[in-house]
């Protein structure tokens, strides 16, 4: 791996990787079982430089901002490096957001360039918000030959044969603006510096080292902080290979493991669950004798690997299972949301190390990491190197708000000094999560202090983001609150948002109203929907400027109603 202390910015470190490993493979792109691209570091550079020069010719300068809106594929890191080469700031946008949300974030970020896949661009062009889109340069990838690009240019043709000029940045300069939430109302654009990324990479790389030949299977969206680090910066600064798979279908993920001899893969809990289900089905289909024998081997493996992972022992004992994962898998990294300990235990028993952890975009991904020494599935591990954790306002049982300090904590929220001041206090990042640290230094998460949920797919959803869809309901007032914010629950899975309705005095909740609520709820993306509604017969507490005092409202509801008052939607 490169010594990242030597570099001031991501562009410099990527440039050094190209010089160090020109003939090693850095990118493989597969669509199902068809390999579409395979690039060495030199070929990667050859693809980047003409794009970087064309961007510079179009006026893209130091500090200019460019957004990428793409699924996982080789053009993602090619475009990202071109942006860094020019000294630009990258805005990795979530392709799963709606076109309306994407346009809103493009406006908020003041992106001068948008690099977007054709099908995503088509959806933006068809949306009413397209009229307000004001990005001067739009580059569309993979557009069909006769497609009308609505003023955009083809990424494949946006090239210049002239040499581009490499623009170095300082460590404290912004590298990326990553939106952690707030697609409507108050966008939270985390401004992450080159230092944040370089420090995070140096912290995590010793645990998950890359070398020429090590392969990372990229299926979590690259705009997600985990894949940006694990599926781009870390492998590239170690001479490794990133395998992009352009589908999430379990059969092709399984196929990619064996085809490409994967070393690492990052997953969200939902995918881990799906892999577990697939294995359980295969176990259940075994003949009774074979199933019993497998059970015995799993018990032996568990006994031998409880204190520390022993990949060779596990691969020998449970050969067939490990071969199904390609035989060279070192770790599955699970993140983005809290993972049920039973799932982690299932894989650990098979000798497949699952590294869970805890992190936030504001802290540039990882805050803690479970080092499996010993294996404690109900914690999220110890703080990563250089990360200080303090539990704020801890109660008698040691539970309080998790606050962290490190060189990886973001610089600020874009154009929101007030929110920045609330979130970073005296250099400490307030995570909004509740936890306590056990005697061995492991962090145990115990719920949330903030009004939001995280889905199994690793999506953060804030109530304010979905409230607009319920505006104008024939009720006196309504708002959306996270159920765990009302009824404090120490669980961090199965979270849901709840619509609180204050009906007009004396008016019962009619079937028609419930039907309308359901219909409006369905306009939201499925992971953003409210899970139920609560009828609240008192006026909402409000500030002088008529904003709802959500914490107070949650407290009032908690004192009078239990969770059973939630009517499912």
């Amino acid at each position, binding site marked *: 791996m490169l010594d990242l202390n030597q570099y001031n910015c991501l562009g410099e470190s990527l440039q050094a990787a190209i010089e160090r490993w020109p003939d090693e493979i850095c990118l493989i792109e597969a669509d199902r079982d068809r390999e579409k691209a395979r690039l060495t570091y030199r070929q990667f550079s050859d693809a980047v430089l003409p794009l970087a020069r064309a961007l510079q010719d179009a006026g893209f300068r130091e500090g200019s901002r460019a957004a990428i809106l793409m*699924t996982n594929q080789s053009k993602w890191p090619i475009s990202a490096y071109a942006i860094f080469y020019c000294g630009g700031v990258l805005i990795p946008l979530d*392709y*799963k957001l*709606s076109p309306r949300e994407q346009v809103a974030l493009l406006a908020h970020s003041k992106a001068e360039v948008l690099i977007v896949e054709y*099908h*995503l661009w088509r*959806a933006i062009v068809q949306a009413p918000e397209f009229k307000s889109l004001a990005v001067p340069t739009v580059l569309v990838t993979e557009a069909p030959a006769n497609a009308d690009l609505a003023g955009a240019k083809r990424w494949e043709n946006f090239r210049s044969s002239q040499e581009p000029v490499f623009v170095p940045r300082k460590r404290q300069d912004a590298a990326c603006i990553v939106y952690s939430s707030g697609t409507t109302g108050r966008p939270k654009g985390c401004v992450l510096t080159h230092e944040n990324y370089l420090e995070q990479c140096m912290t995590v790389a010793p645990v998950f080292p890359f070398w020429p030949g090590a392969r990372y299977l990229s299926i979590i969206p690259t705009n997600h902080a985990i894949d940006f680090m694990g599926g781009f910066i870390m492998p590239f600064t170690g001479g490794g290979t990133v395998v992009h798979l*352009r*589908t*999430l*279908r*379990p*059969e092709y993920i399984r196929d990619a493991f064996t085809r490409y001899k994967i070393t690492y893969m990052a997953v969200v809990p*939902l*995918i881990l669950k*799906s892999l577990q289900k697939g294995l359980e089905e295969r176990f259940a289909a075994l003949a009774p004798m074979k199933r019993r024998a497998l059970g015995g081997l799993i018990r032996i493996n568990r006994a031998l690997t409880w204190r520390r992972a022993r990949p060779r022992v596990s691969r020998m004992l449970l050969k067939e299972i490990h071969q199904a994962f390609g035989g060279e898998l070192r770790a599955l990294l699970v993140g983005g949301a809290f993972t049920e300990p039973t799932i982690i235990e299932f894989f650990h028993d098979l000798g497949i190390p699952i590294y869970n952890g805890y992190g936030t975009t504001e802290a540039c991904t990882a805050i803690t990491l479970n080092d499996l020494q010993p294996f404690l599935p109900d914690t999220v591990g110890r703080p990563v190197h250089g990360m200080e954790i303090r539990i704020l306002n801890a109660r008698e049982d040691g539970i309080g708000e998790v606050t962290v300090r490190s060189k990886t904590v973001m610089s600020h929220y874009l154009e929101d000094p007030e929110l920045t001041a609330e979130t970073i206090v005296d250099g400490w990042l307030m995570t909004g999560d509740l936890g306590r640290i056990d005697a061995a230094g492991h962090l145990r998460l115990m719920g949330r202090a903030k009004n939001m949920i995280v889905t*199994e*797919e690793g999506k953060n959803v804030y109530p304010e983001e979905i409230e607009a869809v319920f505006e104008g309901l024939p009720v006196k007032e309504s708002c959306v609150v996270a159920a765990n914010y009302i009824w404090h629950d120490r669980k961090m899975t199965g979270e849901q948002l709840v619509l609180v309705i204050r009906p007009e005095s004396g008016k019962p909740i009619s079937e028609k109203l419930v039907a309308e609520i359901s219909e409006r709820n*369905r306009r939201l*993306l*499925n*992971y953003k929907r409210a899970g139920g509604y609560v009828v609240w017969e008192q006026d909402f507490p409000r500030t002088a400027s008529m904003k709802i005092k959500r914490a107070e409202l949650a407290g009032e509801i908690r004192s009078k109603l239990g969770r059973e008052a939630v009517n499912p939607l």
Partner: protein
Amino acid sequence: MNPLEKTTDEILRLASEHFKVPRAELNAGDDFFKKLGINSLQALDLLTRIEQHFHIELPDYELQGVSDFKTLAERIQSRL
């Protein structure tokens, strides 16, 4: 039945078989996540089943922003 209605009907039948939900309980306007109680990965399973039936290839993104059978049928119809 026009071609779109026919495609919708086929998709409802495939969903009913795959997720073992009585066909009579499924309607074109239903939210399949809710009605079938499935997550986004299981919805991809349905897409695979549809591909096999219609002998076409559907990228994962065809499911993006779609949650009801009718819209799904419209997207598939445009590829037939």
